[in-house]
Every structure is written in C-alpha cells, then in structure tokens.
C-alpha cells in the first residue's frame, strides 16, 4: 500500500492535475470496497465488534447420520420421527433440528443436525441413540458436531506410528533415599500448597516445593507416596519427580469432585456429579478409572446418583466415597462396589465383572475387603421382622465361594474392622436387649489365617458400655477400645495372641475419644478431640505405661508419619483461630509448631512397605541398641551444631541491638540541649533513665560499754 502522502504533496499533485481542491466534497468520496488506501478509519473498531461471533462452541450440537433418504412429501413425517426420538433425552432448541435437502430434487441427504440447550444433553443423546435401529437398513450413527473436524483429518492411508526412543524416566522414589532419612509432608494453607521435609532434628520444616493455586480443591498422595494428585475443574493431575514436583500426567474429567487411588497406585478413580437441566431428573454421576501411568481411561461408569448411592435405602443424594473399594492387596486385581441387593466385583484384566455377573445378596448393608487378600466380608441385617437372622459372611474372590458365615440375632448394627495384615477381622455387634429399649455391644473375632476360620465371641467387662472407638494395632495382634458412657470413658487394651482374647489393661477415666496407633505398632495416642479440646496421651502398649500427656488446643486432626517416629497434630480451618500444626516425637515431646491461617490439609507422604521380612523387623526391634548407636552420634553432632548456631545467632542479634542502642544514646546526647530548651531549661534528662541504686544507711541506735573478762 502506498505510503500516506503529506497534505503538502497532495496539494502539489492536485495543482499539477489541475484539480480545484477547495471544490472537493470530502464526504462524497467513496473508496472501493475493502480498500482503505492506507487511511485508517476511526470506525474500524466498531465494525470489528459487530462481526464478533458468540464463540460458545458447538458442544451442544450432534450430527445424526444414516437417516433414511426421503422425498419432499415425506420430509415432515421423517422430521417428526426424529424429533420424537431426540426429545426423549433432552430439550431440542427452538429451530434446533435441521435436516438439509438436495437443492434440485428436494430429497433429504440422510443426515441431520440437532441442537440442544446444553452439551450434557447432547452428550446423553449421543450415548443413548448411537446405534439406534430405526429399521433394518437404518442404524443411526451419532457424533458430536465438534468431532467432525477430527474425523475429517483422519488420513486415508495408514502410517506406522512413530516409535519414540526410550528415555529413562526420573526416579520417582528419590525422596526415599534422603540421607537424613526424613519424611515429607504436604500442607495446604490459604491459596498455597507446599511440600516440606520434616527436619525434626533441626526442629524445623525444610521447604521442598511451593506453589500457589496448585489445586482447586484438595491434594492427595498416592498410597505408596509416588504421586501427589491435584484436583482441577478440567480433571485431576499427578505430580512427582526426583528433586522437585513436575506434572507427570493429566486425567481429563470435567467437574471432578473426588478421586481415589488403587492401593498399588496403578489406577485412579475419579468421580463427578452433574446437576440435571431438568430438576425432576436425578443427579447424574460419572466415574472414570484411569491407568495412572498411561493416563488412559480403562473403564467409565455413568448413571444416576441413586444407582451409585451406597446403603440401598439411604435416601440421601450423595454417594459414600469411595464408591469402588479395591481388594486383593497391592496387586490391584479386583475392585467392587455395593449396589441394591448385589455386590459387583470387577477384575482389572478386562475391567469387566467377574463371570460377567454380580453377586446377589439380598439387602446387603455393608461390605469391606481384607487389606491383603482377595476376601471380603459383608453384613446383612435381619429380615422379615427377625425371621431371618442377620449375618456376616466372608467371600473369596474370584471363586465367589462363601468361606465362613455367622448368623447373629437381634442385631441393631454391625461394624467391621480388619487388622492391617488381614489376619483378623473384628466385628462389633450392637444387639438389642430383651426389652428392645437399649442395646449392648459384643465382638465377633474371625481368625482369617487359621484353619476353618474360627470365630470367637467376647464382650467387654461391662457389656452395656457404649463403644466410642476401636482400633487394631497395625501389623500387630492387639487392639484398643474406648468404651463407657461417662463423660470420661475408659480405654482397654486386648491381645488376641495364643488363640484367645485376653485383656491387657484398662485405663480408667480418660479424656479421649479417638485412637491413633503408630503405624509400626507398640505406641498409641489416646486423643481427646472436639469436646476435649485436643488432649493427647502418648501411651506405650508394650510396657503399659503413659509416656507423656500433652495438649494441642483445639486440634482437629492427628496423623502419624509413615515410619511411626513423629506425629503431626493440626488445627484446620474448621476453627477460626489457632490454625496450624505441631510436630511431636513418638513419645510426646513437642518438637516444633508452625502457625498458618486458613489451614486446610496436612498429609504425610506415604512410604511403600518395607522389604524386610517380619522376622527381620522383629529382630531389629529387639536389638535396637546395636543399630541406634550410629544415629545417636549423628543426633549428638546436630544438637551441638544447633546450640552453636543458636549461640551465634543470639550473639548477632545482641550485637545488632547494641548498635541501635548506642546510636540512640548518641542522638539523645546530641539533642540534650534542644530538649532542655523545649522544657524551658529544665535539666531533666537524668530522671528519664531510671537506675535502681542501693543505698546503705547506718544508724546508731544505742551505745553500751561492757568489759569482757579475759579468759
């Protein structure tokens, strides 16, 4: 385009061409369309604005193919049929159905476009009618309008996929090789999410990685600690890496609400629920199971919220999470969910039901997997007004064989507690008394690993005591129960070793309502949360003695680190004040505390299970002195270093302060005269500096003379 001429040039040129410049009416000049001769118009912006289209996307439009080709006369009939089919799944927009016709013949072309109000409805319509048989020759093929582009771009000829050269990945478990053997944890406070080392020896937390707005709702470690999962509007993501946190994989799942890893962290289950556009419809839920490493969807489940609500006749709208419970230990072989009168067990080889059918169990109320074996226990309440007793059964998978069953009478409720090695199952049974006015509690103990699975019944000393909390010793043979109706309940410890349940001890009148065993056993925290304001008692179950009592005022959460060396107690934002966390040693010594406003989450990074055999672990525990020498020396060194650093720091602070004070003194001295002037010459500074002086005063009270006889 020509450069813009100056007015001078224009006049010159006009004179040359003999044009009378003054006679030109500027407004009458019309430029050719689409040509501005290099002159920018002030109106351009306006035009651009007008031509803006609403770029809402075409997610709510579907394309239906394989419709019959009909002549003009039958057009309306076909349109009516199509409209009828597609109005069932959602509301078609006004003028939202468009069936193109051949211009010359008026025949339809065999496809149409349908526009819904929402993408969700379009998605549903596609799902429901893809493959719909109108008749033998016309099977609908339904696609999203947005996807047409994608299909157009499919090349006609097959090309072999490029094989990328193998690049070794990072060691995602580098954190386990920390020289100082520390553990990591993640905290979420305000908008920041932060991963830190628990540097307990230095009595502080050492930052690893921090990121604001890392997640939109919460974070979660995978069960073996390899990944940290974050949740976003578009889906979930996992992070990890050797030294820092990089995004390793994303899992698309719009509006994801909840996530759950399989115990061996091979799979990730994501869950979302969607409000229906029609208020009469139920909530729809979507569950996806992803392969964690490839990010592929292995199986998706869609349905109404009612189908996935657990407990059958619960009557609540949400689902209890996790919907799918993983069984069979760390191999991630089976997962199952409970439905109405059935339990569906899937296997991960095909992601289908085992034997292609669910296990029918009338009125099943609860089920739970053994933590280590493909065995699950179910609880069925009484039926027919007591004619059919309640029962607890154990099922083996994949054979679906019932291993053991126990009938129970006049039961009001059952709770199942697996020991972490899957060796024992304790079932807490609440039974009605004869009058049906109150309940009492008993326990049924299943010894899973023994022949024929013997069952033992036992009761508390006072069977009318209400059981407040129950917890197995991890990997151990003991359990703790908080029981009693007093404001200060009792805590009892039992052992199941030697084929019989025996009581170890009962601690009377404790301010406790929750039990937290150390993951390595031996130690337990009796915690008084909520009403007890955060009372903590650190108890050694081997020696049956209290190691320490302490308090973390208002504490809401308690979590042991995966090694059982340290405990974190935290006050999360359910309380307005005191937010933050404390780190304690296993024996109840407060190591350090960090306060953070709007504190949401504290999670230790889990560790994979140890490769040592239980015998070896036992041996190490017995000969701890031999092994601990090395660490004692290290501890000593660090504590010397710490006090050294501390002294240094204090000296520094003191020196700095000394400098300030000297400077102030100097100013004060310099300004002395001026100050006197301001005070009308009153020499008053002396009094400003108070000095405590001791003055001795001697006073003569009395004088008397006495002659002392010489001995």
């Amino acid at each position, binding site marked *: 385009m020509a450069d813009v001429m100056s007015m001078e040039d224009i006049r010159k040129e006009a004179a040359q061409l003999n044009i009378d410049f003054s006679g030109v009416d500027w407004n009458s000049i019309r430029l050719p369309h689409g040509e501005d001769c290099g002159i920018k118009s002030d109106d351009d912006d306006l035009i651009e604005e007008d031509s803006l289209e609403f770029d809402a996307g075409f997610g709510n439009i579907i394309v239906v193919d394989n419709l019959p080709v009909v002549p003009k006369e039958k057009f309306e009939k076909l349109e009516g049929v199509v409209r009828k089919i597609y109005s069932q799944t959602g509301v078609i927009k006004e003028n939202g159905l468009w069936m193109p016709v051949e211009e010359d013949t008026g025949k339809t072309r065999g496809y149409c476009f349908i526009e819904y109000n929402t993408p969700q409805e379009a998605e549903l319509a596609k799902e429901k009618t893809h493959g719909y048989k109108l008749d033998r020759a016309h099977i609908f093929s339904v696609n999203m309008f947005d996807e047409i582009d994608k299909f157009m771009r499919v090349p006609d000829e097959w090309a072999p996929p490029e094989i990328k050269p193998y690049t070794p990945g990072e060691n995602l478990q580098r954190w386990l090789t920390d020289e100082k053997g520390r553990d990591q944890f993640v905290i979420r406070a305000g908008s920041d999410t932060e991963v830190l080392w628990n540097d307990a020896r230095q009595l502080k937390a050492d930052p690893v990685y921090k990121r604001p707005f890392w997640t939109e709702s919460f974070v979660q470690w995978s069960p073996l600690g390899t990944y940290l999962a974050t949740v976003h509007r578009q889906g979930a993501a996992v992070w990890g890496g050797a030294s820092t946190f990089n995004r390793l994989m994303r899992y698309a799942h719009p509006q994801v609400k909840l996530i759950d890893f399989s115990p061996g962290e091979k799979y990730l289950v994501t869950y979302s629920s969607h409000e229906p556009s029609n208020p009469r419809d139920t909530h729809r839920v979507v569950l996806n199971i992803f392969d964690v490493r490839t990010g592929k969807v292995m199986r998706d489940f869609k349905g109404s919220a009612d189908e996935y609500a657990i407990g059958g006749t619960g009557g609540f709208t949400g689902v209890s999470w996790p919907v799918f419970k993983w069984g069979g230990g760390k191999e991630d072989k089976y997962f199952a969910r409970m439905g109405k009168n059935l339990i569906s067990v899937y296997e991960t080889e095909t992601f289908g039901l085992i034997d292609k059918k669910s296990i029918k169990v009338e009125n099943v109320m609860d089920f739970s997997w053994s933590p280590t074996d493909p065995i699950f226990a179910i609880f069925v309440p009484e039926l027919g007004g007591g004619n059919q007793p309640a029962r607890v059964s154990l099922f083996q998978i994949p054979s679906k064989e019932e291993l053991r069953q126990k009938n129970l009478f006049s039961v009001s409720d059952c709770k199942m507690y697996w020991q972490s090695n899957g060796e024992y199952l304790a079932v807490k049974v609440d039974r009605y008394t004869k009058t049906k006015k109150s309940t009492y509690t008993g326990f049924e103990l299943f010894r899973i690993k023994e022949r024929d699975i013997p069952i033992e019944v036992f009761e508390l000393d006072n069977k009318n005591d209400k059981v407040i909390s129950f917890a197995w010793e991890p990997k151990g043979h003991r359990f703790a129960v908080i029981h009693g109706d007093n404001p200060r309940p009792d805590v009892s410890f039992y052992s199941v070793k030697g084929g019989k349940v025996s009581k170890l001890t009962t601690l009377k009148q404790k301010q406790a309502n929750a039990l937290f065993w150390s993951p390595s056993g031996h130690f337990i925290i009796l915690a008084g949360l909520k009403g007890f*304001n955060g009372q903590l008692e650190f108890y050694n179950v081997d020696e049956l003695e209290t190691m320490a009592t302490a308090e973390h*005022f208002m504490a809401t959460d308690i979590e042991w680190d995966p090694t059982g060396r340290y405990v974190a107690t935290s006050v999360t934002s359910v309380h*307005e*004040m005191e937010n933050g966390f404390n780190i304690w040693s296993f024996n109840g010594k407060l190591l350090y505390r960090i306060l953070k406003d709007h504190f949401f989450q504290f999670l230790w990074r889990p560790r994979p299970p140890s490769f040592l055999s239980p015998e070896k672990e036992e041996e190490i525990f017995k000969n701890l002195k031999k092994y601990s020498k090395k660490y004692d020396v290290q501890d000593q060194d660090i504590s010397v270093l710490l006090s050294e650093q501390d002294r240094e720091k*204090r000296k520094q*602070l003191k020196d700095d302060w000394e400098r300030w004070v000297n400077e102030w003194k100097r100013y*004060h001295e310099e*300004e002395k005269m001026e*100050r006197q002037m*301001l005070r009308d010459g009153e020499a008053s500074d002396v009094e400003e500096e108070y000095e405590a002086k001791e003055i001795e005063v001697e006073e003569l009270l009395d004088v008397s003379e006495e002659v002392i006889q010489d001995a």
Partner: protein
Amino acid sequence: MRPILMKGHERPLTFLKYNRDGDLLFSCAKDHTPTVWFADNGERLGTYRGHNGAVWCCDVSRDSTRLLTGSADQTAKLWDVQSGTQLFTFNFDSPARAVDFSVGDKLAVITTDPFMGLTSAIHVKRIAADPDDQVGDSVLVLKGPLGRINRAVWGPLNKTIISAGEDAVIRIWDTETGKLLQENEKEFGHKKTITSLAKSTDCSHFLTGSLDKSAKLWDSRSLSLIKTYVTERPVNAVAMSPLLNHVVLGGGQDASAVTTTDHRAGKFEAKFYDKILQEEIGGVKGHFGPINALAFNPDGKSFSSGGEDGYVRLHHFDSEYFKIPSI
C-alpha cells in the same frame, strides 16, 4: 504476684497511662468518665466528669497537672489533674481519638476520625501555660491518610509526628511544614489495621501492634524496621518495659468472634516477649475479654492491663521477674 483488680469502669477499657512519676494511673473507657488511680495500691482517686461519649485516649503533662482526653463526643478536653475541673474543650466536627503532649507540654496532637464525609485529620494545638489564655485554634492540620488514625505521637524533639491507623501504614510528618516525610516500606509493614503504638522513654524507637497478629519495633528517626514479634492473636495493645528488654502484647480474639465457652480459646493473655530475641518468654492470664490497653509503670516494676471485660488489672512484678536472664 497477686494482681489488683480495679473495677471502676462499666464499659470496656480503651487506654491506660501512667504519669511520669509513676504514682498515678489514668484509665479511659467506653463509659464517659476517665478515672485516676493510685498506681501502687489501685485505690481510686477520682474521675473526670464531663465527656458525653466513649473516651479513646488520654495523656498527662510531665508535671502531672494537666490531663488531655480525646472522646467520641467530638471533643478533646483539658482537665486539671488534681481538682478534676474542666479547663478547656477543643471542639471538632468528628470524634476525637488519639491525644499526645509534646516534649515541654506546649503543644498537643489530637486526631479526629473520618465522620459524615469528613476524612480523618491530625490537629496540632498550642497548650497555653495559663488555661485562661487557651484558644481552640489549630496550629497545623494534617490530612491525607484514608481510614481512621488510631494513634499519633510526637517524634524526637517535636520535629515530627508519627501516625498509624486503619490503612496499616506508619507515617512520619514534619511538624514545621506539615509535609509527609516518610511512609514505612510496604514490604516490611503491617498487613492489617494498626491498633496501638507505644514510644520508648527516650522516644528513639516505638512499637506498633496490629490486627495482623504481630507487633513491630521501629526506629523513630529513620522508620526502619528493627524487630517483629509474631503472636497468635490480633494485637490490640502494646507496651515496652522501660527497665528490661521486654515487650508486652495484649489482644485476643475479637469479642464478637468468640464462639467457644473456653476462656483459653480467646487467648486473652498479656504476652511477654524478649525484645531482642523476639521470643515469647511468658504470659499473664486473667482477663476474660480481649486486652485493649497496656501500660508500664515508668519504674518498670509494675504494669497494668485494661480489657474489654471492663477491668483494669494492676500487676506488681515478683522478684523472680527481675531475675529472668536476658540472652
């Protein structure tokens, strides 16, 4: 040490001030009568009647003859300490808040709140030696900061005025020209409303307390930040020991936000910090409402606290207190 409870006010305490000799304690509260007490035994000496609104602040002249009070009734009043008679009333168009006598007591600074469209302001008044000559004209009026000014005090040699308030910024003004000389660096400053300010005896440094749950120590001349004391509660009141390197922070959960019945939940403690190490060294419990006012006796051997609960608690330190090792 058993604290002496002084129950003379019917409403929450707002301010406490010792005279220079340390034998009198003046207390201000939301009831309308500032009160004077014997600082040694807590005996009530008398009240100053005349205000018609909450009294926010007071200051007493060096020779303990004049008392200046700032009140929500839109006045600041000058009283005769001994007789309790009103000597003069400064009238404003909005509630008066902070008051402070200059070195030499010839000038006084009085701040007024933002009110009915008026912005907050800092007024400098001349205090006449003879109350009959007293006039109400301002020598200087400083305006600028948005929001309430909670405290304004004289800097060294009356050359500057230091102000702090709702906008969390500490400002130093030139008293000759009325110009704004300095604002504290945003990076180091408080994040929320500054509620209180206490000068050191020699005026070389001062301590500010803020709702951001911290207190900060500043140099009065350069306005450089020297120390920060972090606590768990919003800070309503601060004081510095004139004797030892201790600072005291008082505060607590806002009375309206107290939801739990447990008195510990509010943390209505006066907390002692080591001035140099910035570490907490102790606390004095007792109030059952947030602490609104703190003052140290100029001899450093006692201090008093005033709470939302309407009590003034007077604490004489035990001999052990003076044995607390510093560093």
